[in-house]
Every structure is written in structure tokens, then in C-alpha cells.
């Protein structure tokens, strides 16, 4: 113990004596550790930390299998939910939540919120009691019961200033009177970022309501996961027998509720990010090891003296390790500060995304501290052990001659060179990943959606189904909205419809020519939306053949559709599709059959970057929905029209506020927010790795020049021109750089492909990205060696020959 303290004291003094060197190593290790702690905090928040609900291990989520956005399951409809509750009675308490836009209006201030239609037992099943007021009761969910609602803590504070008299107050929810009965605790939201909950009436025998329910279940005492899964399997088998078409090709599964925090895609992305930060940490360790190695070589005589004074190899190694332990401790302190800042940034960015679960917390807790300590210990050993072991070898073998210069320098230099090659390779691989992501996002931003995005203002509106219960009512409101917009002198054209091209607010259907048997094979798929007659003018889309929608297309007239060129290429069989009939969702008995009346150019309704999928537009009059997108083509700056559009909406329906009022670049930006966050994270990792590689090269070059000062002096004295000296000194570095870059390209291209495949089917690394990464690294290497180059060229032969 005493010896350890002495070693730490010596290491501390050495750091004080060479503060620049100590700061460089602590910075290098701190950067690597910060990335790792940052990632550990994210992993802890997403995966390791228990859900903030009572006895979270008892909670399951169930649903159709697939990537449903909340974990790896799809939601069910209210009919299925009612049956599932019956099947699981006695084995599990089943609850559900259907996410929805909910408009809250009182005090003449309508506002749109994320809300959820939930079973009355949802909060009971989660084991979370209201902070104020009461929970939903079964009576609240009975047909005809007075409407009630519960608020989130944040909404209660933001809108009502935390006024406790809110309980019992009447507000308007989606235009209908409802009583506030409770406020949920601080930081509670479910299932994602909801602020408002209303009870759903789930009764077997009723037709399905409009919501998609994410099902959760709390196992009863003595019931295992397998019991629940078997019961769900029985329900699924019975349901599929009763309605084979609806369940064809689908499976049902239950999984721990904890999965909802990190679905398959999120786990894949976290895995990629973790791999990247481990690479950065390895680069840091290699760098620090290299710097320590070169410094240890500079201390060769001192170490030989220690051996002569009786230091054993073990003591010598402990002495040298103490330095890396001390530097790692400083680095860890730096890393925690940086990581906290990174996590705060990440959380602020993620909280702006649509599907971010607000209850996720990313704090540096005991788990993170424990894991970070492990990473720090690994770092200290990885950075310090190699120099210490090498020093232990050479110090024992070294001689006592004063000024002995060649103490094991050869093997040291070899190890050092290998480390630098590794650093360059890792940095190159990371930069290729960063470049690929940035380029992929750039391609998405520039993607041709088939519309004219300039001068386009968009917004969403959700009508109250109580105030506007029928399709005709809703259509009437939409017609008034677009009519009023078009009356404004600033507006070129305005349209209302369900889709928003380039986003995920579009319907997804399977399609076949009418009369064709669906069979069991995978069917062609398309995205569709219902639009009014002004869609072409508002979005700047050109009709290629046939006609667009007009007054002939009424709710009761023949069902028609306009398709894009991709549809014709995929399903036209080389002939015109005009006048031909197609069946949507042919396995669904309720699937519509439409006649194609027009063809437009390629239109991307889904998020850009994925596989091109055909698009189909249907008349809004024939497929109206209570939530719609408004598109306004303006003469001037579209954002300048934002307040006007709001005012017009208020005049038409004061209980239906507009939301997501954005120009089109913001629409696309928001739909790729996850990719941007990941690209930025990788950008930070890549920049750190680049800086580390440059620092590594710099350290080695400085060391090389200082070790060879006398030789350089001799060469200069013998008349060697500058270029010969440089070629001699840096030739080997160029070789290191070349090998490192080659290895980096070989590793980076497949790594980038893996990464982009887990995101938006972006293209992999291309020549531009690879060349770009190489140029950046060569430039960084050039900068790193610039100072040593100057130093080498300024070596005065007379001074150099007196060196040592």
C-alpha cells in the first residue's frame, strides 16, 4: 500500500513537471472515455434501467409481430383487445393505450396534444397512482358515461400553472365537454410523450373503434410468461380461424415491456454506436500508450538507475502503471463532464422527436458509474501496461553507461509504429462511416419527392369526431379550409388531404388487379393518401395522363384513384393503367376496389431514402379521415403565412388547432431526425478519432525528430538538402499512413454498409466518401507533422552535434 502511494506521488509530481504532456494524455484518454460513458448512459437509459413502473418484471407487451414503432410489436384493434382481455382473465391484468392527437380547448385557447385513448385500468396495471385527483374507474369507460380526462404533470403546470382546483373543472376534449379527474405524477407519461388520457370503451361485440392499441399485461401471481404466451397463442389461433383473411401472414407475440424503450432498430443503432465508441476508446488507448511509450523511452536511464537501486521488475511496472492510473483518473473526471454535456444534448434532441418516450431518463447512476469504472480500469491498463511491460524488459537489460542511447529503442519504435498504424486505420474507418451517413442524409434532403417543395407551407389538423362525426361533416370543414386559404391574395393554391409526401403519415396497402387471387405470396405494396382536387396545384405535381379528381368524384360515385409512374411500371404490365381496376388489401374483405383515372409523375409519399414504393391518390371525398394535412403554396416566404393560416383555422373551428406548421425543408428534416442525431453522434466520434490520430502522429513525429536530432545535424553538416532530410525522417511515417489508410478503407466500407442498413436503407460508402476520408486524414497527418518538420529543418548542425 505504501509503495502504491509512493508510486502515485511520483506520478503526480511527474505530471506537474510536464503539465503539457500530462494534459495531452489526460485529454486523449478523456475524449475516448467520454464517448464510452456517453454511450453507457444511453444504454443504461434504454436497456439496463428498470422501467419506472411498479414491479416492472411482471409487465409484458403483446401484439402482432413486426417493427411497430413501440418495441417489436404492432398494435391491435379494439375488437382484438376485448377478446384478449377475456382470454387472459385470471392470468393477467390486461390494459392498452391507443396514441392519438387530442385537442384540448378551454379559456379560448385550443391546443393540440399528444394523447392516448386508454383502458380504464391502464394506470392501475402500470402501478402508478395519480399525483392529484383520482384514477379512471370502470364506470368511466362504460358506454354513455360522462366524459372524463386525466392530465400529465407537465401539461397541468404549463397550461394551468399547477392549480390544484383543476380537479373537477370542465374542459373541452376534441370539442366535447369533459371533466378533469386527475393529474399524473411528475415525469410520468405513457406510452411515449402523452399529455392527456381519455378512457376507451372496450366491449366485445362492438365494431372496432378508430384507435390502434398497444397492449400491456401484468401477470397474476403464480402465472409465468409461458402461460400468458400460450393463452395468447390460443386466442390468435381461434381469431385466425374465425377471420382467416385478417390474420393471414401475421403472428402474435408477447415480450417484456422493457422492450418498448428500445425496439430492434434502436437496439441495432445503439449497437453500432457502441461499436464506434469502443473504436474511439481503442484509438485513445493506443494513442496514450504510444505517448507513454515514447516518454518511457525518454526515461530509460532513470529506469535503469531504479533497477540498479534494487527495483524489481514488478515494482518498475507498478511505478509506470501508476502514471497511467493517475492520468486515467484525471481523464475520467474530464470524461464525466463531457459525457454529461453529450447526454444533455442527446436528450434535448431526442425529446423533440415525435416518438421519444419522455419517461426515459439518461442519468449517470450507479450502473453507469460501475461500468464506467470498468472502462476506466481497462483504459488505464490498456494505455499503461504495454509501456510498463516494455520498460520492465529493457530497464532490466540496459547497461549503466552514461549517455547510452540505444536502449531497446528498436522494439519500442516498432510497437509505437504499429500503434500509430492502428490509430490511423480506426480513424479512417470511423470517418468513412461519418461521411456515408452525412452523404446519405444529404441525399435524403435533396431527394426528389415528385413535388415542388419551395414556397410550400404545411400544417396538420385533427377534427373532433364529436363535433364533426360524419365523413360529410369532415369533408365540409376541409373544403372550407382550402377555399378560405385560396381566397388569400398571398396564396397560389391550397389543398387538404391525408398524406404529407416524404413523411410517414400515409396509408400502406397491398394491391392487386381486381379479380386476381391473393394467394399466400407477398403482394405488391403501395402508399396511398386521400387528396382534394387542388393537390396538383398546391404541391406542384404534373398530371402525365388521364384526369385528376374533380366534382365528379363524390362519396357515392365510382371509387377512383390516380397513381404515379412507379405504380404503372410495377403493376401496369407494360400497358396503360387508365380505366383498369385494382383491389386494395385484397385479403381484407373490406378492401376497396378503385378505377385508375389518371397518372402523375413519380411521387414519394413515404420517407425518402427507402425503397421506391408506388403511390396512389384517392379523392378525399371517398376516403376522408378526421386528421388531415394542409398544403398552401404561397407567393412569398411560406413561413410568413403561418400566422394567417392559424387565424383562418380558428375562424372555421376554434376547437381544432393547427399543429406542425412548417415549410417543407422542416418537414423532411423532422422525418429524418433520428438519422441526423446518429450522424451527429458519429460525427463527434469521428472528429475525436481524427484528432486522436493526428495527436498520435504528432507525438511520434516529435519523438522521432528529437531522437534523431544528432543524426539530422550530421546529415545537414554533410550537406544533405532539406528534402533529403525530410524524406529520410518522414518516409517511414508516410508508409505508416499508407498502411493505416488501406486497413481503414478495408474495415470502413463494410462497417458503413452495416450502419446504413440499420437506418434508412441509405447507400453504402462510395468513392467520394472514401476519397474524402483519405484527404481529411492526409491533411490531418500533414498538420500533425508540420511542427516536427519545421523543427527538423531548423536543426543547426553545430548545436545538434553537441546534443547530449
Amino acid at each position, binding site marked *: 500500500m505504501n509503495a502504491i502511494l509512493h508510486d502515485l506521488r511520483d506520478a503526480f509530481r511527474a505530471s506537474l513537471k510536464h503539465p503539457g504532456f500530462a494534459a495531452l494524455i489526460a485529454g486523449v484518454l478523456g475524449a475516448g472515455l467520454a464517448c464510452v460513458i456517453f454511450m453507457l448512459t444511453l444504454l443504461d437509459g434504454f436497456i439496463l434501467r428498470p422501467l419506472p413502473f411498479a414491479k416492472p418484471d411482471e409487465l409484458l407487451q403483446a401484439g402482432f409481430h413486426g417493427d411497430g414503432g413501440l418495441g417489436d410489436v404492432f398494435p391491435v384493434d379494439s375488437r382484438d383487445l376485448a377478446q384478449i382481455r377475456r382470454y387472459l382473465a385470471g392470468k393477467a391484468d390486461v390494459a392498452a393505450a391507443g396514441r392519438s392527437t387530442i385537442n384540448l380547448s378551454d379559456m379560448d385557447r385550443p391546443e393540440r396534444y399528444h394523447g392516448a385513448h386508454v383502458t380504464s385500468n391502464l394506470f392501475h396495471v402500470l402501478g402508478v397512482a395519480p399525483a392529484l385527483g383520482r384514477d379512471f374507474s370502470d364506470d368511466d369507460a362504460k358506454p354513455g358515461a360522462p366524459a372524463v380526462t386525466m392530465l400529465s404533470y407537465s401539461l397541468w403546470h404549463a397550461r394551468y400553472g399547477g392549480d390544484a382546483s383543476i380537479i373537477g373543472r370542465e374542459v373541452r376534449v376534441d370539442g366535447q365537454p369533459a371533466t378533469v379527474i386527475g393529474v399524473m405524477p411528475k415525469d410520468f407519461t405513457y406510452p411515449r410523450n402523452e399529455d392527456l388520457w381519455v378512457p376507451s370503451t372496450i366491449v366485445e361485440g362492438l365494431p372496432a373503434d378508430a384507435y390502434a392499441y398497444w397492449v400491456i399485461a401484468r401477470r397474476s401471481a403464480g402465472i409465468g410468461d409461458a402461460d400468458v404466451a400460450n393463452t395468447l397463442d390460443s386466442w390468435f389461433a381461434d381469431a385466425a380461424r374465425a377471420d382467416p383473411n385478417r390474420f393471414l401472414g401475421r403472428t402474435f407475440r408477447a415480450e417484456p415491456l422493457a422492450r418498448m424503450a428500445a425496439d430492434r432498430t434502436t437496439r441495432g443503432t445503439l449497437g453500432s454506436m457502441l461499436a464506434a465508441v469502443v473504436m474511439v476508446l481503442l484509438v485513445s488507448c493506443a494513442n496514450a500508450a504510444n505517448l507513454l511509450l515514447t516518454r518511457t523511452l525518454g526515461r530509460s536511464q532513470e529506469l535503469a*538507475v531504479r533497477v540498479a537501486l*534494487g527495483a524489481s521488475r514488478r515494482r518498475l511496472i507498478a511505478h509506470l502503471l501508476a502514471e497511467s492510473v493517475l492520468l486515467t483518473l484525471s481523464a475520467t473526471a474530464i470524461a464525466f463532464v463531457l459525457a454529461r454535456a453529450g447526454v444533455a444534448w442527446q436528450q434535448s434532441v431526442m425529446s423533440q422527436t415525435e416518438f421519444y418516450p419522455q419517461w426515459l431518463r439518461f442519468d449517470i447512476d450507479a450502473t453507469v458509474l460501475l461500468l464506467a469504472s470498468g472502462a476506466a480500469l481497462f483504459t488505464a491498463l490498456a494505455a499503461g501496461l504495454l509501456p510498463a511491460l516494455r520498460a520492465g524488459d529493457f530497464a532490466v537489460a540496459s547497461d549503466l553507461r552514461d549517455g547510452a542511447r540505444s536502449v531497446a529503442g528498436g522494439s519500442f519504435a516498432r510497437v509505437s509504429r504499429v500503434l500509430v498504424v492502428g490509430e490511423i486505420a480506426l480513424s479512417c474507418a470511423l470517418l468513412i462511416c461519418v461521411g456515408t451517413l452525412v452523404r446519405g442524409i444529404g441525399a435524403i434532403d435533396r431527394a426528389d419527392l415528385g413535388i415542388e417543395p419551395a414556397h410550400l407551407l404545411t400544417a396538420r389538423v385533427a377534427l373532433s369526431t364529436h363535433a364533426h362525426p360524419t365523413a360529410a361533416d369532415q369533408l365540409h370543414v376541409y373544403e372550407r379550409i382550402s377555399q378560405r386559404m385560396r381566397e388569400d391574395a398571398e396564396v397560389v393554391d391550397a389543398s387538404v388531404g391525408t398524406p404529407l409526401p416524404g413523411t410517414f403519415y400515409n396509408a400502406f396497402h397491398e394491391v392487386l388487379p381486381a379479380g386476381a387471387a391473393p394467394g399466400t405470396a407477398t403482394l405488391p405494396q403501395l402508399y396511398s393518401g386521400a387528396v382534394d382536387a387542388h393537390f396538383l396545384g398546391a404541391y406542384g405535381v404534373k398530371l402525365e395522363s388521364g384526369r385528376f379528381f374533380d366534382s365528379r368524384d363524390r362519396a357515392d360515385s365510382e371509387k377512383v384513384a390516380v397513381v404515379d409512374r412507379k405504380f404503372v411500371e410495377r403493376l401496369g404490365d407494360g400497358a396503360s393503367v387508365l380505366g383498369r381496376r385494382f383491389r386494395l388489401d385484397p385479403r381484407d374483405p373490406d378492401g376497396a376496389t378503385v378505377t385508375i383515372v389518371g397518372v402523375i409523375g413519380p411521387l414519394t409519399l413515404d420517407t425518402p431514402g427507402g425503397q421506391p414504393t408506388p403511390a396512389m391518390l384517392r379523392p378525399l371525398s371517398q376516403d376522408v379521415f378526421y386528421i388531415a394535412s394542409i398544403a398552401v403554396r404561397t407567393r412569398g416566404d411560406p413561413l410568413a403565412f403561418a400566422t394567417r393560416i392559424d387565424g383562418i383555422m380558428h375562424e372555421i373551428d376554434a376547437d381544432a388547432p393547427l399543429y406542425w406548421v412548417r415549410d417543407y425543408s422542416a418537414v423532411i428534416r423532422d422525418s429524418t431526425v433520428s438519422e441526423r442525431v446518429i450522424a451527429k453522434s458519429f460525427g463527434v466520434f469521428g472528429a475525436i478519432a481524427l484528432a486522436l490520430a493526428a495527436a498520435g502522429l504528432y507525438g511520434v513525429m516529435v519523438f522521432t525528430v528529437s531522437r534523431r536530432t544528432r543524426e539530422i545535424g550530421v546529415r545537414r553538416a554533410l550537406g544533405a538538402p532539406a528534402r533529403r532530410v525530410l524524406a529520410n525522417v518522414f518516409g517511414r511515417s508516410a508508409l505508416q499512413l499508407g498502411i493505416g489508410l488501406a486497413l481503414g478503407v478495408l474495415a470502413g466500407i463494410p462497417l458503413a454498409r452495416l450502419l446504413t442498413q440499420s437506418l434508412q436503407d441509405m447507400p453504402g460508402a462510395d468513392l467520394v466518401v472514401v476519397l474524402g476520408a483519405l484527404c481529411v486524414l492526409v491533411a490531418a497527418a500533414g498538420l500533425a507533422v508540420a511542427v516536427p518538420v519545421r523543427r527538423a529543418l531548423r536543426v543547426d548542425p553545430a548545436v545538434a552535434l553537441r546534443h547530449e
Partner: protein
Amino acid sequence: MDPMVRLVDVERSYPVAGSRVWVLRHINLDIGAGEFVSVMGPSGAGKSSLLNVLGMMDHDWTGRYKLDGVAVEKLDAKRRQALQRDKIAFVFQHYHLIDDLKVWENLDLPLQYRDVPSKERAAQVGDLLDRFNIVGKKDLYPNQLSGGQQQLVAVARAVITRPRLLLADEPTGALHSSQARAIMDLLHELNRGGMTIVQVTHNEAFAAEAQRSVRLFDGWIESAAPRT
């Protein structure tokens, strides 16, 4: 009775470009306990190589080496290091004090490496600071001392473990004459106390002060004459 040092047919060579360079050839040398021996010779004669073999800093030699009755060539690395720790100490031309340690900490270091308890170490360091008259310098760093003072500390550091054999590689080589004289007086005093001393030196006068001089040339012992 065995002498303190017995070298029998010791040879040392290095591989160079396919052949070997010999730095010590057929060295046969006895040094008695309590003897003071000077090793002399021109540069490259093998003086430092001989000192490395004697100090067990070099193990790749052939022949036989007995130190205080123990056959060094038969020891494994661990036992060799233990023997070295137990019996030998070094003084260097350029002192080689540890720059980051204070004077007293430099003296303390060899005791630490021998796992001497801290109280005992403090007592021994205190004794030696007093004996070498450097108490006032104990909290200074080496670079705050003159060359002579640094070598004084280096000798103190060497003898704090009470070695049987002190190997001094040009201990006065970097000092001016008055400082060199003081160090030589100190070595004599230690020798009178029973310590066996082998010094490498270029200084004929200081070499002559030893009881015996060994002269090396091209790795061979040219002469091992007693002081006349």
C-alpha cells in the same frame, strides 16, 4: 576463504552483422573483501562492460562469477536480482539522482525497493543525512544542488543499504577537482569501514589511491597490479 569477487574465464560478446564483437576476453580476477580496486583503460577497453557483469546488470556472459561465495551463473533471474539487492550498490559519473524526488526521497528509494518498513526507513535516512552532513539539503530537488553535492547524495544513496560491494563508474568524472577530492575521501572512508569498492576511472592519480589497479585493453586484462 573465497574472495568477495571471483571471475574465472569470463567473456562477453555482441552479435554484429553476422559475426561477434568481443568486449571482455578471458577475464580472471579476484577481489578480496574490503579491497579498493581501480579499473582503468582507454575508451572501449571493456571497463563499463566489466562493471555491468560485476553489478549483475548484464547476464549474457560466459564463464564463472562468484560473489561473496555465491555462484552467480547458477542463479535464476529472480535470485540474481535478490543477490544484487543484498550485496551491491552503484555510483555513476552523472549521479543519476531521480529528478522528481527530493534528496531524502532519493535516499529512501533503495530502502523502499527492499520493503523496509517506513519508520525504519525514516531512521536510516535521517542517520545518513546527518552522517553525510546534508540534513539542510534534504528537501531540495537534485537540480537545486551542485555537482559535488549531487554526487555526495548519490554515494549516500548507494551506501544506505549497507552493500558489501560498491561499484563506482567514474564517480569523479563530472566534478571539478575539489569536489572530486571530497568524493574520493568519502570512498576511502567507506573502504576503511570494510566496504569493497571497485571504481572505474580515467584519473591516474585517483586510480593510484586504490590498493590495486586493473588495466583493460580491447577486453583483455592487461595487468592487475597491486599498488606499489
